[in-house]
């Protein structure tokens, strides 16, 4: 498989008896952008960490993670370490904890470039400056000498993206990259990320629970619930004609300027209940206890994935809607 930047097959991530990711499959084509949506605890971050080989101690994977012609799940730590930052890289939610606080940001990006290429110090510095310029960071030369605490949240996240892009990886995983940022900055950072991955043909996996971000930046989307993908497909299709009751619930509970009544009488439709703890997942469909359409079949049998959907009674929206 050379035409996909990442091909995940039947991935399970667990810690002892606890299964947090239970049979996830998806594929991101070269240069493709996929969004992974789900509530906290749905397993989206663990899926990403499994791809990076950065799972916390005690967690193990089953299944295949095909990337760059190899199965990452069988690679040794040192093999993975040589790969991280070079063919696959990750942007974390909080740049302040992801950056080393006692090293200048210049050192952090230059050492990465030098580790993965045979560029000398001067050449790597030039590359770093060029990257910073591309990220719309002001005064790149000075910026290289700054420590993370001297920068604003938006600047730090731009630097994280620059570091992630430095070695022209095939895939960037961005885990809630703008959640910690101010809304006004969020859009600028997303735009920078969007332009940078588009220019380089880098594939992007965007993990977030913010649906408008997915709509703005991704081609395809996978909705995760309790460790499984319940619905997947092109963004336009999934968001305008959701078939899974959970996707539908997520879309409807998002307040937007359009679904608010002027007299303040509107009520947001919320999904009742909460995400079940992993220890006591229901038999059958995991969403069934919160689903208004649940039947006996849902309580007994786990729905199979058919055409990117895992539900026994998909919602059929009228063509007009």
């Amino acid at each position: 498989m050379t035409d996909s930047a990442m091909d995940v097959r039947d991935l399970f991530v667990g810690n002892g008896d606890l299964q947090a990711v239970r049979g996830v499959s998806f594929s991101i084509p070269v240069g493709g952008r996929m969004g992974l949506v789900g509530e906290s605890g749905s397993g989206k971050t663990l899926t990403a960490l499994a791809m990076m080989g950065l799972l916390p101690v005690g967690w193990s994977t089953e299944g295949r993670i095909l990337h760059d012609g190899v199965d990452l799940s069988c690679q040794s730590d040192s093999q993975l370490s040589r790969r991280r930052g070079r063919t696959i890289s990750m942007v974390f939610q909080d740049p302040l904890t992801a950056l080393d606080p006692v090293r200048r940001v210049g050192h952090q990006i230059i050492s990465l470039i030098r580790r993965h290429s045979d560029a000398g110090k001067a050449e790597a510095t030039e590359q770093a400056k060029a990257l910073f310029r591309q990220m719309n960071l002001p005064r790149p030369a000075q910026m290289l000498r700054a420590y993370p605490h001297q920068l604003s949240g938006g600047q730090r996240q731009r630097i994280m993206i620059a570091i992630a892009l430095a070695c022209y990886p095939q895939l960037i995983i961005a885990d809630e990259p703008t959640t910690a940022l101010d809304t006004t900055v969020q859009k600028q950072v997303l735009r920078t990320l969007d332009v940078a991955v588009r220019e380089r043909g880098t594939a992007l996996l965007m993990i977030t629970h913010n649906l408008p971000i997915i709509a703005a930046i991704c081609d395809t989307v996978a909705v995760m619930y309790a460790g499984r993908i319940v619905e997947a497909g092109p963004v336009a299709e999934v968001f305008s004609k959701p078939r899974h009751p959970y996707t539908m619930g997520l879309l409807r509970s998002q307040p937007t300027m359009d679904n608010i009544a002027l007299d303040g009488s509107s009520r947001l439709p919320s999904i009742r209940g909460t995400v079940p703890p992993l220890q006591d997942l229901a038999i059958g469909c995991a969403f069934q206890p919160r689903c208004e359409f649940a039947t006996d079949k849902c309580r007994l049998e786990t729905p199979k994935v058919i055409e990117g959907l895992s539900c026994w009674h998909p919602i059929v929206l009228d063509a007009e809607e």
Partner: protein
Amino acid sequence: MTGILELRGVSQAYRLGRRSPFVTASYLQVLSNVDFAVRTGQAVGLVGESGAGKTTMTRILTGLERPQTGQVLFDGKDLWEMNAVERLEFRRNLGVVMQNPRSSLDPRMPVGSSLLEPLRSLGIDCDHVARVNEVIEQVGMASSVLGRYPHEFSGGQLQRIAIARALMTRPIVLIADEPVSALDVSIQAQVLNLLMDLVTDLNLALMLVAHDLSVVAYATSRVSVLAAGEIVETGQPLELFSRPKSKATQDLVAAVLTMEAGLAGRGLD
């Protein structure tokens, strides 16, 4: 019309560190001449970028910080000229809900004890057990959860508990600083609906600080925009956001990512 809790001409500045004792200290003006009011039975919103002064404003409203100039009025009385009895009365009448319920509840205390804390510390004389049971029901939870510890709950449940704790002393003003930004979308809707119900049922005055304009537009009937320490615009949320006059409001509105624009391929324009 006057509000139950009000700021009148409030200004606040923080002194910045001096580099040498021979240089005059410089000040950072955080709030300048702010007028703001929260009214009974009404939810008001406060929006603004980080650094605009939202947190300072809530700290002054809750009496945690004394403004350099201007007045904080609770029920017509100046907060900083109150005697001990009036001050206690003010604290009883004020509930606060913070952004992150995990850090605002003591992890070593069963949530039932956390709920009792406001009654104990403010010396309120009533049937404590009955009050806890009543309030936990008000936020839509069963009294069986009271013996459990914070780590056993999800973020949304903890935020309900934090709201319950804020309601324990039967406050008439509730200040919620980003109460839903740490929550998942589906849970966010539940908590927002709960806050709105409480405003109606208990005739509360609610101040909602948020950065998400649609959250504010959904939950409040009046919103003020704070920019660089000044209130630049106040109005009915939908009207304000559809026809923003000031530059600050325009910037906030322009930064909103909408589903429609995203699906039309113009999400980041």
